[in-house]
């Protein structure tokens, strides 16, 4: 039988390894910054443009509506600094099918603030920032640092970033419930000009989570004693998760003025999920003032090792999940966008403006997640769940 010390030792070793990994990563980041300062002065990279974006967003699907504003302001200060701030709100009504099976509908609001600073030195751009997200039952705080460097005649840009976040998870109606989670992300990227008309990038990101990782409102279901119905119990997730994602993106300028882009992402994690994402899109200007775009996206994933739609009995295994996001499924999206540009506005220092409307339509099809709200059938024989979702992004942007 294991004693307390034996149980703690692997956890301590894991924490030490994670701490050592974080320290090494920060050292590498600092080294990269110092190397950038040691490089001879040359043509400069550029800071983000001064701009303001005001967006209204709306998601509808699976009987949920989420909507709200997002406002981003970016402003340069002097020649070397740029600052940005973002305010974002999600107003959520109703609940997804995962919650409807065992709990009541609700309304809530999530508010997110972020602040960032960017510093330019020769061909190097460094940035750091902080993000805070508040819900009545969930708080998340994240800070991040990053560096990017132009090289090889400015044909290549290499970037690295690190972020760390802390979550506090609570549950409405359970005042004594409070859990925490710690999240770290390590990312490296490379963007390469390949020809006069072709640019490509590759990005790799590892994310590690530790703590309470499941949703306190979600339940798994298991057959009751008689086998003619089911009962529910709270999910149990592992306390750690590590994921690796690699994304390849390419964009090509067509012989006439239009652009074609493609993206592929490969994903794996320690929950056992393997996912592929494919995307291809086309951008086509019309005259001097309009830009039309069209994109399609396909996403597919395998289930987590501890997922099941219906467990044979309560506590059938050590970890139990029935989130549809942990099941085997796929979705297909089509996205259409239209942009109207306004030049030479000449009002309040505004140089240029755009009005943008983007609409996404997505079909989700689940392979082993059933609609447990259907009654009058033997558990495990309900129809497979599927739903359609639409996303609207309407925003104006100003450059000044």
């Amino acid at each position: 039988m294991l004693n307390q010390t034996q149980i703690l030792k692997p956890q301590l070793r894991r924490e030490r390894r994670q701490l050592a990994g974080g320290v090494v990563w920060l050292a590498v980041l600092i080294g990269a910054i110092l190397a950038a300062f040691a490089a001879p002065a040359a043509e400069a990279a550029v800071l983000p443009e001064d701009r303001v974006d005001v967006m209204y967003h709306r998601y509808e699907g699976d009987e949920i509506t989420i909507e709200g504003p997002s406002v981003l302001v970016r402003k340069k200060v002097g020649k070397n600094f740029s600052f940005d701030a973002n305010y974002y709100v999600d107003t959520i009504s109703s609940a997804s099918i995962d919650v409807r099976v065992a709990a009541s509908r609700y309304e809530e609001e999530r508010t997110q603030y972020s602040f960032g600073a960017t510093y330019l030195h020769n061909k190097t751009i460094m940035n750091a920032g902080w993000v805070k997200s508040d819900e009545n039952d969930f708080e998340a705080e994240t800070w991040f640092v990053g560096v990017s460097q132009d090289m090889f005649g400015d044909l290549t840009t290499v970037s690295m970033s690190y972020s760390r976040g802390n979550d506090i998870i609570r549950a409405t109606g359970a005042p004594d419930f409070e859990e925490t989670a710690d999240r770290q992300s390590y990312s490296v990227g490379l963007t390469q000009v390949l020809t006069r008309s072709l640019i490509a990038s590759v990005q790799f990101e590892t994310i590690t989570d530790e703590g309470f990782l499941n949703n306190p409102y979600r339940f798994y279901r298991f057959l009751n004693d008689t086998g003619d119905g089911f009962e529910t119990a709270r999910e149990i997730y592992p306390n750690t998760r590590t994921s690796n994602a690699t994304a390849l993106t390419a964009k090509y300028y067509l012989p006439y003025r239009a652009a074609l882009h493609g993206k592929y992402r490969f994903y794996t994690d320690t929950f056992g999920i393997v996912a592929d994402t494919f995307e291809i899109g086309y951008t086509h200007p019309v005259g001097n003032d309009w830009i039309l775009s069209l994109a399609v996206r396909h996403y597919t994933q395998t289930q987590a090792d501890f997922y099941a739609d219906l467990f044979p009995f309560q506590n059938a295994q050590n970890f139990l999940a029935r989130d549809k996001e942990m099941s085997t499924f796929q979705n297909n999206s089509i996205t259409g966008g239209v942009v109207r540009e306004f030049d030479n506005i000449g009002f309040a220092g505004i140089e240029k403006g755009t009005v943008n409307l983007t609409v996404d339509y997505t079909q989700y099809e689940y392979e082993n997640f059933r609609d447990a709200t259907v009654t009058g059938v033997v558990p495990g024989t309900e129809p497979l769940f599927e739903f359609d979702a639409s996303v609207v992004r309407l925003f104006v942007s100003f450059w000044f």
Partner: protein
Amino acid sequence: MLKPLIRLSALLLLTAGITACGSIEPWVKPYERDLLADPIMALDADPVSSAYIHHVHESREGARGAQGSAGGGCGCN
């Protein structure tokens, strides 16, 4: 788990060092980058919009990361 990342970072640092020592002749000259400079060629033209759609995807899919966004809660019960 972090070993590949550390190796990759070391490679990137080495690359940065090489650039500091001497310049490589760019095969696409600065005056040949007019097409790439066209706004329709931006890899992320509208950060607010792309950050939002990445959040929508990450809230409803098991996969995450390598999309250029960071932080935040879920709003996905």
